[in-house]
Each structure stands twice: as structure tokens, then as C-alpha cells.
């Protein structure tokens, strides 16, 4: 019976024609953006709107939780301290005892921002807000956001290495042997590429899967997929922050030999 309901719907889907799929307005909306124009610049408005809402939520939690802090924590302060401890352990493990304090806020912000974006994209009923074009969703489901984050990570580890070791940072490229030089240079390009595409691909694919399932079988079938989405979203935030910390740690690492 399930198949019987599924088949005509699948046939009705203009899956064979990707052009049409983009044009479809009451079904899937892929690659459509709600453009803002700032002088000559084009902006994806829906990304900024949802990211502002989610940043607002994050800051609200932080402000409310740190308002009256006590030595014996309770309620929201407990949660925030747990997060803080989690981020500290993460950055201390990856960056090392010597430099982790400088980079903990950056790594932590990446983690919290991506986590909020991913979960916000999955949990907030954005569909209730109708935009003239495009739709609100996880800001991390847009390639611009993830590339911006990945480039920040690149800048961060270059800055970390150079500010800590000066020009000696470039010794890293010929260690342990100069044969590594081309690989390490290629790595500088693959790192942001893999970071950004991993995050973008996962979140995008998750949203896509869920919306396709919702379109086909609206009620209970997409639920497991949604839970899986929440799971991968959290994992992706963790992976991004861990890798960022690992790259920074690699850059500030001192060879003791």
C-alpha cells in the first residue's frame, strides 16, 4: 500500500529534469536564494536571517546563563560550564597545553556556531515563514557559510603558526623530510576544501533527504531520517571544531628533537 502511494508521487516528481526541479516552488527549492543587494554586492538574505536568529538564541542562552554565576552551579550555568569544559578538553587535546588558551574561544565559537546552525536548521520550523524566494534553513547548508568558516580556519592556523614561531613556521613544510614539501603545500588547499565541503555536503544532503521524504510521505516516515540528521549535525559540528583545533595545533607544535 505504501508503494502504491509512493509510485504516482515519484512519477509526478520532475526528477528527470533538474532545471524544472530548481524552478519548482511549492515543492523542493534547491539553489534558490532570497537576494539582498548591498550596492554592487549580492547577499543571500535567508542565510543571514536564520543565522541572526540562531546567534540571537545562542547569545540569549549565554547571557542568561552567565548572569548570576555561583560557585555551586545550577540550571543553565551547569550546561554552559559543561560546554566550556567540553570545548576546553577538545582544544587542549588537539592544540596542546602551551597554546590552547589563545585558541579556545575561536574553536569554541566554531563549534557552538555550527552546532546551533545545524540543529537550528533541523529543529526550528522555518517553513512557517514564507520568503518571496528561497527558504530559511540551516546557515551551514549554504556553501558560502562553510567556505567562510573553512577560510577562517586556514587564516587562523597560519596566524597561529607565524605568530608563535615566526618564519620558523615554514620548517613545518620540510619536516620530517623535504620530500614532504609538495604534499604539505597541497594540504593547505585541501584542508579548507575538505572542511567546507564536508560540512556543506552533510547538512545540505540531510535537509534535502528530509524534504524529499516529507514531500513523498509527510507523516512518520521522515522521522528516523530527522533523528539521523540531528545526529550527523552534532557530529559535523564536533568534526569541524576538532579538525580546526588539530590544524592549529599542528601549526603551533614544537619539534623537540
Amino acid at each position: 500500500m505504501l508503494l502504491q502511494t509512493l509510485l504516482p508521487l515519484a512519477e509526478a516528481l520532475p526528477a528527470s529534469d533538474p532545471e524544472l526541479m530548481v524552478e519548482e516552488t511549492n515543492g523542493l527549492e534547491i539553489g534558490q536564494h532570497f537576494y539582498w543587494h548591498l550596492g554592487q554586492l549580492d547577499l543571500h538574505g535567508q542565510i543571514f536571517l536564520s543565522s541572526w536568529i540562531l546567534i540571537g538564541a545562542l547569545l540569549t542562552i549565554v547571557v542568561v546563563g552567565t548572569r548570576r554565576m555561583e560557585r555551586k552551579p545550577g540550571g543553565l550555568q551547569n550546561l554552559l560550564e559543561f560546554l566550556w569544559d567540553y570545548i576546553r578538553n577538545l582544544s587542549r587535546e588537539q592544540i596542546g597545553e602551551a597554546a590552547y588558551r589563545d585558541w579556545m574561544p575561536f574553536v569554541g565559537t566554531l563549534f557552538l556556531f555550527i552546532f546551533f546552525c545545524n540543529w537550528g536548521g533541523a529543529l526550528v520550523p522555518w517553513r512557517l515563514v514564507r520568503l518571496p524566494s528561497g527558504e530559511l534553513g540551516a546557515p551551514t547548508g549554504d556553501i558560502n557559510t562553510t567556505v567562510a568558516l573553512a577560510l577562517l580556519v586556514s587564516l587562523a592556523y597560519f596566524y597561529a603558526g607565524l605568530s608563535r614561531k615566526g618564519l620558523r613556521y615554514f620548517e613545518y613544510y620540510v619536516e620530517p623530510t623535504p620530500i614532504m614539501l609538495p604534499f604539505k603545500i597541497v594540504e593547505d588547499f585541501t584542508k579548507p576544501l575538505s572542511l567546507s565541503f564536508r560540512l556543506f555536503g552533510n547538512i545540505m544532503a540531510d535537509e534535502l533527504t528530509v524534504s524529499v521524504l516529507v514531500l513523498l510521505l509527510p507523516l512518520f516516515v521522515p522521522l528516523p531520517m530527522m533523528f539521523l540528521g540531528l545526529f550527523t549535525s552534532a557530529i559535523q559540528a564536533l568534526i569541524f571544531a576538532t579538525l580546526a583545533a588539530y590544524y592549529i595545533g599542528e601549526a603551533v607544535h614544537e619539534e623537540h628533537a
Partner: protein
Amino acid sequence: MINWLSLAEAPVPEGGLFDFDATLPLMAIQVVILTFILNKLFFQPVGKVVEEREGFVTTSHKDAKARLAQVQRLEDDLKARLQEARQEAQAVITAAEDEVATLHKAALAEAKASAMKLREEARADIKAQRSAADVVLAEESRRLADLIIQRLVAT
């Protein structure tokens, strides 16, 4: 619904999944700003509280250890004193017992001596009385003998 949406007029770009535009740098700037804000609002204050607490716990732990050591020392001290007191008490008890024994012996000896003396006295007394009685008896028997003789003679 929202007025400023009318900003979005003009030529609408094509769009697509890989549509890079000014969103990228602005999002980067936004995240950098967020980093500074979170550092001020979250990482610094929470870090301060957590590290203060860690310091507090370490100090308390050290304090408690010192106190425990002191308690141990006091306990040892008291134990030693208790031992001493017990020994002293034992010594006092032994001395008292010795004294009692001596007194007992002395009293016993004295009592025996006085009993002996009394007996001697009594014996001497008896002797004296017996000799006195003997004298009286001898006299009496002589008188009786005289009387018997007189009566025999008279008849």
C-alpha cells in the same frame, strides 16, 4: 508582510547550489565578531568561575589534608598520654597493694604478739593462783590433819 523585502528587486542572480557572492566575506566577519563577543560573554566569565572553583577545590583539599594530619598527630599524642596515665595508675595500684599487704602483716604480727602476751599473763596468773591455792590447800589439809589427829586422840 515585511516591507524591506522590496529591497530585493533589481536583477535577480541566477542562484544555484554553488553561488558564491558577498555572503562569504560578510559571514566570515560575522563569525569573527561572534568569536569576540562569545569570548567576552562566555569563555572568559565561565572560565574564570570554573578555574576559581578548581582552585578552591585544590586549596580545600590541601587544607583538609593538613587538618587530617593534625588530627592524626593529636590522636597519637593523646594515645601516648593515655598510655602514660595507664602505667601511672598501674604503679599507684601496685604501691597501694604493697602498702596494704605490709600493713596487714604488721597488724597481724601485732595482734599475734598481744595475744601471746595475754596468754603468758594468763598462764602466769594461773600459776600464781595455783601456788596460792596450793598453800591454802596445804594449810587446810594440815589443819584437817590436826583435827583428825585431835579427834583420834580424844577418843
